[in-house]
């Protein structure tokens, strides 16, 4: 998939980023993510362990939502964009069967050390409308001025 390169000058504060829909999440999708990361915490695949810790089912991995934030940002910034910082704060749980809607918007933009720096807010909602994860990202985008 190739996308048109976005430039610093194209970006407006409060502009929404192109979102991602992931799911409905299945246990297989979660196990694939665990395997690729070499993290086999049973709370993500063993319902008995999850229930013993007071959860209704196995939990969608927090870092899966971080990975989806990362995917959203990288798909948006294109080949010339550079990811500098990304974060995720887990405020609620998601379970198998939930669909995750990964969204973002522009908080601010500045030229810092001749680089077009963009500050973004990110969040993950599920189909109930609940925001279970919030995050932020900082990226550098190319400037049209520097690209002829």
């Amino acid at each position: 998939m190739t996308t048109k390169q976005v430039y610093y000058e194209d970006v407006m504060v409060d502009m929404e980023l192109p979102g991602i829909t992931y799911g409905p999440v299945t246990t297989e999708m979660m196990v694939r993510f665990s395997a690729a990361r070499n993290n086999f915490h049973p709370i993500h695949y063993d319902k008995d362990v999850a229930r013993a810790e007071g959860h209704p089912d196995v939990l969608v991995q927090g870092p899966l939502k971080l990975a989806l934030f990362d995917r959203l940002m990288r798909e948006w910034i294109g080949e010339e964009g550079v990811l500098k910082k990304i974060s995720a704060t887990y405020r609620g749980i998601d379970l198998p069967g939930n669909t995750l809607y990964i969204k973002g918007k522009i908080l601010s933009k500045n030229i810092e050390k001749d680089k077009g720096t963009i500050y973004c807010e990110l969040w993950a909602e599920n189909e109930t409308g609940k925001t279970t994860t919030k995050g932020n990202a900082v990226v550098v985008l190319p400037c049209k001025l520097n690209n002829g």
Partner: protein
Amino acid sequence: MGNESLVGPEAKRMIGAETPLGGPLEIEKGAVLRLGQSTQDKSPLYTDEEFAKKSKHGKLLVPVTFLDYNVPSGDEREITWKVPLPVKNRVRGKDEIELFHPIYVGDTIRARSKVLDVYEKEGKDAKLVFIIGETEYINQHDVVVMKHRITSIRR
């Protein structure tokens, strides 16, 4: 739950504890592609070798979520999970990543982790313990490519 602190002197003593620089991991293309498949990532810089070769990078990039458990000493089990606490249930509270240099397929990455802080807070139903760990990732050129700070919560 009584008023006694969950964070005892042994736990407090682990603040500042650090792993040695762990054994290297050479990042293999197939492993990165499997991570991309799990998140349905189609970014060509991460999935399309021919596209990546023609880009300014010249090779495939690695997503930031690939490293932590895959790289020895980046795994939180090796340090923050060892903080002795009377509570065992554990959830991830926050991830914060700062990238200093691109990470490429074929790079050889080493990591070291340390405990930055251990403290408790009153939760809705019980006391919660917050453990902050930070891992530094270093490539084959001795360049620090990424720092990853993880807040885990025990209750």
